């Protein structure tokens, strides 16, 4: 039986209540930390646990927290990031709906560790129901003394409010999110040598962490960093991970499993394998900003380092599964459509480069492709690293994956002078394009 950290109180049809959360030891980590640990010690525990950010970049959480030591005094902020707009990703929605107080306790512990005064819970508009749920649970936490002045009788005070977003993928980028909260147009903003941990919201030190990252903290504090690290199935991993599986599988859903669980196992056992009549062709292992991963690699343990070793990224660990009938050129066009629409338009590589790559792929898909488009695509995708933020390099990943592992399929479009696929029944009464071969 796998150890549960994040879904310990899962009820499936409703969120766990504050009472249920407490019955299973909830808010015990907060009481322990306030009584026994200095803020810096909580940062040390997190650093020792090996926890890395769950929002996509995988930055070591403890290192980020420790950088607050010696920062200027005055207001400090914690921003739990639940923008979650990476296609294929819905783990934070499931998590918040499963055990809202676990996320809240994680936020409060983070705030204590970096000595923050205020938390701003950033939520995307598609998750309005969750925003309302969180607001209700914040009230309960306040009444129980977990938020507000002198939390649990200590001299630590902190409160959280909800910030409703009005859409756009770029708001998930930490510096853009900070601008969005302040009411400015949310273009990412970088200041050389200055990180948000030094100058973030209203120029004050600010910690932006993904909701899942924060939800790991109570277990690290109460059960110890070594325990947390050892739950992972690989030495390079730490803790458990929420894996969203979607696409052509029997049971799409969000599964909590040890970090380092092999990809094949997640798809075949947890998600129930492929839909009848479907064979695994490829998946995006970590959302739309990662490369197509072919079947020959599907034994890979799902953790940051194991994927990196074979040229992939864990991203948000949202596994989007494509079957043998899906045209991956068309899938890549769909992904680029997303990135083209969501680009904030700030820098030229992203604003002009992404539509140009989409144009080349559309030409190929419609049978008007030329041999030279393949090196052009490769070069353009490679150039995206010169863009202002991580958005465009992410957008280039599926293109690079397509050319690396499925170049034959791209070339078949060229040699046939058309897409080797046709429309057919997708099930449920809709049409779907399928490969002839």
């Amino acid at each position, binding site marked *: 039986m796998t150890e549960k950290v994040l879904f310990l109180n899962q009820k499936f049809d409703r969120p766990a209540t504050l009472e249920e959360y407490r019955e299973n030891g909830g808010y015990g980590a907060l009481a322990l930390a306030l009584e026994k640990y200095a803020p810096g010690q909580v940062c040390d525990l997190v650093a020792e646990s090996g926890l890395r950010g769950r929002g996509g970049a995988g930055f070591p959480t403890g290192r980020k927290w420790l950088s607050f030591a010696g920062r200027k005094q005055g207001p400090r902020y914690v921003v739990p990031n639940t923008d979650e707009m990476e296609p294929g990703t819905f783990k934070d929605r499931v998590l918040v709906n499963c055990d809202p107080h676990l996320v809240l306790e994680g936020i409060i512990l983070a705030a204590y560790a970096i000595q923050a005064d205020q938390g701003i819970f950033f939520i995307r508009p*598609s998750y309005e129901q969750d925003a309302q749920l969180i607001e209700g649970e914040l009230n309960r936490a306040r009444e129980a003394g977990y938020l507000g002045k002198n939390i649990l009788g200590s001299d630590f005070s902190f409160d959280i409010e909800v910030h409703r977003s009005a859409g756009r993928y770029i708001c998930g980028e930490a510096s853009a999110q900070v601008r969005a909260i302040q009411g400015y147009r949310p273009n990412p903003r970088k200041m050389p040598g200055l990180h948000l941990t030094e100058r973030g919201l209203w120029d004050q030190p600010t910690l932006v962490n993904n909701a899942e990252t924060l939800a790991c903290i109570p277990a690290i504090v109460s059960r110890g960093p070594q325990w947390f690290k050892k739950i992972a199935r690989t030495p390079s991993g730490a803790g458990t991970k929420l894996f969203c599986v979607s696409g052509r599988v029997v049971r799409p859903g969000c599964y909590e499993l040890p970090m380092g669980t092999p990809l094949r196992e997640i798809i075949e056992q947890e998600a129930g394998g492929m839909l009848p009549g479907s064979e695994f062709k490829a998946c995006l292992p970590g959302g739309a900003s990662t490369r197509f991963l072919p079947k020959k690699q599907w034994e890979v343990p799902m953790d940051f380092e194991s994927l990196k070793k074979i040229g992939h990224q864990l991203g948000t660990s949202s596994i989007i599964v494509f079957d043998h009938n899906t045209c991956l050129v068309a899938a890549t066009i769909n992904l680029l459509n*997303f990135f083209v629409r969501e680009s904030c338009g700030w820098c030229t590589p992203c604003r002009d480069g992404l539509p140009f790559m989409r144009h080349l792929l559309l030409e190929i898909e419609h049978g008007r492709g030329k041999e030279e488009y393949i090196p052009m695509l490769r070069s353009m995708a490679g150039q995206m690293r010169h863009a202002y933020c991580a958005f465009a390099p992410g957008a280039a990943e599926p293109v690079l994956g397509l050319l690396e592992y499925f170049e034959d399929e791209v070339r078949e479009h060229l040699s046939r002078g058309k897409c080797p696929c046709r429309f057919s029944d997708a099930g449920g009464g809709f049409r779907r394009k399928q490969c002839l071969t």
Partner: protein
Amino acid sequence: MLPEEIRHRLETRIAASAHPRELVVDVMYELQNHYGFLNDVALREVAELLQLTPLEVEELATFYDFIYRRPVGRFVLHVCDGVVCWMFEEQSALDYICKLLGVAPGETTPDGQFTVLPTVCVGYCDHAPAMLINGKLYGPLTPEFIDRTLEELRSISCDLVLCR
């Protein structure tokens, strides 16, 4: 003109905020819900309430896809065209809805009931293909499910507003 009750509530919130500009999205939502969309009058009122220029509000209003600068119907259908929904229906749910309602993407039905907007991944990939109607999830979509849902919504008298 904004009713006194809404204006007063917003002014109180703004006065209590250390950084009033932080409230701009909330204020835009509030006025959008009152007027049905963020019209030019609403845009100026948002600016005035927060002591911003109308242009500053405009650059935000046009940035966000859940702020509507043109009139929308009573129900706004955000039909997901993310890669997972695409994989299941290749935009045919959008095509089906548009055909059923007799509108093109982005248009509103002549009776003012429905607006159809193609939308990037809405985060319900485990219910693909999916759409949001005034912020509420509907999925997995089938032609029969869409027929039934739209028929039910036509006959609802109260406004169902979660987020729009």
